[in-house]
């Protein structure tokens, strides 16, 4: 080894600075070499010890305020995990899940065995479904098993899947005392597409766009054979009819009765009264509405003290274009919805079932359920980061309240509607009639959809709370 | 302390002395011999304090002498143990009957 691989431009300057400055502006320290920095001895022995102690005590003093950004050196920046959560990046991947279509319950997997083949730890197992009449294999799975305990989250399965049927989930809280529960079967693997959209919107949009592109190409190439499969047509038709029936049924009765199919779990795809295939253009509205629901609710709460209740249209809180905000809010909405789902499961025992918080329908006119404090005008919050925090806060609160409501509804018979600005395209009558409130003015304008949704969210939320309280009493 | 006669304390000290005597003369390990010597010194100390207590409680001479004995014992222990370590380093043993060579 020669000398120049060992040493680098280190200098012992006579500069009065305490530390010697390395002359080279871009120091490139070779492997195996060391830079010797000469320090000037302090005048008084022991003084540097006190200085070191001072640094530590200074950190201690500054640590009592929370850091807002990470550019500062001193101050705590701990995220208190179960209560506070950092937004997960979209590309975060934990365990694979299977997707099915929200509207039809159609599972995307065709049992092509690509994922099973590529899986490095060999934890994916599947059985191809067979036509019960003919006994011939059909492009669907009858059983699909992933051993989560041995899965290494490499994401190869999602990578190779030609039908976007297998995707990587964001849920990382998988710890359990029951080892066998980590061998997950198809019923527990299935998630609706809307769920995946909520956790990875851009990825899903890309996937969808490429799928459409492919479809278009195929249509051009083989126009005769490409189209919607006949069995799917039947399903779609049934779904349409069901939705129409529901709309009729919902008109005079309560909102909670509007969803006859109890949303027990995602495994049993609910025949929801929804648009057949949610077009890509609908999606942003959908998301924005959900986001808006959370935000508006939060802002409304904040503004309750400030402004008296005037049930006018709430001005737009902020634009939905801000991506991190968007995500956080979406996450919040998802969580709220999960809680609502739980509530729903319990309430399903009662005669009425609540609807899920999937605001997939363009809401037109929503009547407030109970509104002494109905929707005060929410102030515009321009700061994106604040907004994001608020959204997260809202998620926590929403969950807590949902839980409360859940407990109370379990006791009573009626189920409250949770943050659901979705289902009835017409009026939603009050959940509990003794708390009836003046109807809110209709919001006919199309661009105001979002606002209306927000408003509806607030009202629904309040209603839920009130109802829960009333039932509890 | 009138309940305990002086003879009892002296008997105890003499017993301790004899035990230490036996230990100092019969153990092969150098440090063990040193321990025997410490026991003997302590027996002497007990005597000194007992005589101070029973015959001259107005003076502090007995205590002073006991303190001197302690000082000497400490010095002796320090030097003795240093010797034990030096012996061990040279002969790889501290059994005093193994250290019989004049090579130094």
């Amino acid at each position: 080894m020669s000398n120049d691989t060992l040493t680098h431009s280190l200098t012992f300057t006579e500069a009065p600075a305490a530390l010697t400055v390395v002359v080279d502006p871009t120091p490139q320290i070779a492997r195996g070499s060391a830079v010797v920095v000469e320090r000037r001895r302090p005048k008084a022995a022991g003084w540097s010890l006190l200085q070191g102690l001072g640094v530590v005590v200074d950190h201690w003093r500054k640590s009592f305020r929370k850091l807002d950004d990470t550019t500062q050196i001193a101050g705590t920046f701990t995220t208190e995990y179960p209560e506070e959560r950092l937004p997960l990046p979209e590309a975060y991947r934990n365990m694979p899940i299977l997707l099915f279509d929200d509207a039809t319950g159609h599972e995307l997997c065709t049992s092509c065995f690509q994922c099973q083949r590529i899986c490095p730890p060999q934890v994916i197992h599947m059985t191809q479904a067979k036509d019960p009449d003919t006994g011939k294999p059909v492009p669907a799975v009858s059983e699909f098993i992933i051993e989560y305990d041995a899965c290494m989250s490499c994401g190869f399965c999602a990578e190779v899947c030609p039908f976007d049927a297998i995707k990587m989930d964001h849920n990382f809280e998988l710890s359990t005392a029951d080892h066998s529960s980590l061998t997950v079967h198809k019923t527990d693997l299935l998630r609706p597409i809307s769920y995946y959209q909520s956790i990875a919107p851009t990825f899903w949009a890309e996937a969808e766009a490429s799928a459409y592109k492919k479809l278009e190409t195929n249509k051009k190439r083989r126009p005769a054979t490409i189209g919607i499969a006949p069995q799917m047509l039947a399903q779609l038709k049934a779904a349409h009819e069901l939705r129409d029936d529901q709309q009729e049924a919902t008109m005079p009765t309560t909102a909670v009765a509007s969803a006859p199919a109890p949303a027990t779990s995602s495994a049993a795809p609910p025949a929801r009264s929804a648009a057949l295939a949610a077009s890509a253009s609908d999606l942003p509205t959908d998301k924005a509405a959900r986001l808006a629901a959370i935000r508006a609710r939060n802002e409304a709460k904040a503004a309750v003290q400030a402004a008296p209740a005037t049930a006018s249209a709430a001005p737009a809180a902020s634009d939905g274009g801000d991506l991190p905000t968007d995500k956080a809010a979406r996450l919040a909405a998802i969580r709220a919805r999960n809680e609502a789902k739980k509530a729903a499961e319990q309430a399903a025992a009662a005669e009425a079932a609540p609807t899920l918080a999937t605001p997939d329908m363009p809401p037109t006119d929503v009547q407030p359920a109970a509104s002494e404090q109905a929707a005060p005008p929410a102030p515009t919050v321009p700061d994106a980061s604040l907004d994001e925090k608020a959204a997260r806060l809202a998620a926590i609160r929403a969950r807590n309240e949902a839980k409360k409501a859940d407990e109370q509804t379990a006791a009573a018979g009626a189920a409250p509607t949770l943050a659901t600005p979705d289902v009835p395209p017409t009026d939603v009558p009050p959940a509990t009639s003794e708390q009836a409130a003046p109807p809110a003015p209709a919001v006919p304008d199309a661009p105001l959809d979002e606002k209306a949704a927000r408003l509806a969210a607030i009202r629904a939320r309040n209603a839920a709370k009130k109802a829960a309280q009333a039932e509890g009493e | 302390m009138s309940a305990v006669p002086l003879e009892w304390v002296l008997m105890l000290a003499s017993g301790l002395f004899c035990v230490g005597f036996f230990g100092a003369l019969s153990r092969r390990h150098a440090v063990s011999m040193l321990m025997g010597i410490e026991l003997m010194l302590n027996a002497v100390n007990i005597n000194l304090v007992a005589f101070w207590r029973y015959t001259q409680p107005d003076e502090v001479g007995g205590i002073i002498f006991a303190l001197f004995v302690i000082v000497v014992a400490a010095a002796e222990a320090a030097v003795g143990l240093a010797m034990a370590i030096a012996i061990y380093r040279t002969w790889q043993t501290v059994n005093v009957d193994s250290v019989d060579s004049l090579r130094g």
Partner: protein
Amino acid sequence: MYDVVDFILNTQLGLNSPDWVVMLISHLIVVAILFAIAPVQVLFLTYYERRAIARMQDRVGPNRVGYEGLLQPIADGVKMFTKEDIVPVSADQRVHLLAPIVTAAPVMYMFAVLPWGPNMIAVDLPTGLLFFFAISSISTVGLLMAGWASNNKFALLGAMRAVAQVVSYEIPALLSLLFAVMLTGSMSLMAIVEAQSGLFISTTDVPNIPDLGLGWFVFTPVGFLAFVCFFIAALAEGERTPFDIPEADSEIVAGYMTEYSGMKFALFYLAQYILNFLLCAITATIFFGGWQGPGIAWLVSQSLSADNPAGNPVYNVLAGMLGTFYLLAKTYAFFFVMVALRGAFPRLRIDQLMNFGWKFLIPLTMINILSAALWIAITRWGTAQGFGIIEFAGEPSNLVRWLIAFAVTLVINVAAYWFLARLNIQDHVARQAALAAGGLAVSPPRSA
């Protein structure tokens, strides 16, 4: 406590108990109180340390169990108690069992001589200070037992390091405390605390100073240097960073505690934290006036005592509470400094530790004793004691004497510090130069 028990047993209940029964019962009660306090202190100290060090490292620290994590030490304790007690097969079973007991028991004794407030002390031994350090030296035997009985080389190394360190640093610790014994003429901790009344100047030196309980020894150059030396030595005795060489986890696992688990480990832990608490408390007592503080003197003057039979016993209680508060506040402040030191400094090497102790601290404390002697000579002695220099220019007042003593000792101590530090640094530099010249790693070679 004796009076209270005597009052209840003989006057109230009419039992006519003999003297020694009353004494036994009263001592048992005091001991019970102290033994209940000690583990609670340890519980709180562990929490306090973890929170403080977390803050210093920009973390939050344990805040889950209970309000702000206050119950965390209890959770830790439960964890400790329910752990399996593992004893190595080749260990010396009896010694292995005895070692934590021998380590933990003596530190409990040390509470006996600690004054908590005016007239609040378990035993006011005339040799209290010596007792304190004599008892603490028994603990080292326990460490050695633990290290040897574990039959583990890390444990043995840790024990040897611990003993070498503790025995070495006992000398500067005791030497630095000698000034207090000289100034008060007593080894009783109560007397040492009582001597520290006044306002920046002790009433023992200048009697007409207003008594605000602030005549602490640390305000004199002698006391300040002794405080610095003692606190450093106390860190080494309590095996605190930067002197935690015996349990340097990056080198020798956990030192003498390597082979211990469960309750036995908890006992070591307990002993260590009680020792740390007591070292902080003794620092506060000797240098920072212990329970002395503003208001104590007034409360004591109002309270019931043999001199003041017309006093109100309520003031006794108030004085005790205030005194205990002052003592604990000072103690926790010192513990905070210990924690900050832990956060700030890396661990020393064993040779650095020994060099520092023997070549710097011990000479410094010896010079400090000289300063203390001069202090006494200047402030208290006259021609009658054969020290007439100070009275050369007439009959100086106490304050003038105090000021002269302050100046003289300040000059001596600063010069000693500067000189010794320079000497040690020069020694270090010479050593490094010898290394550079291809000399030996540890010390210059002998001529023959």
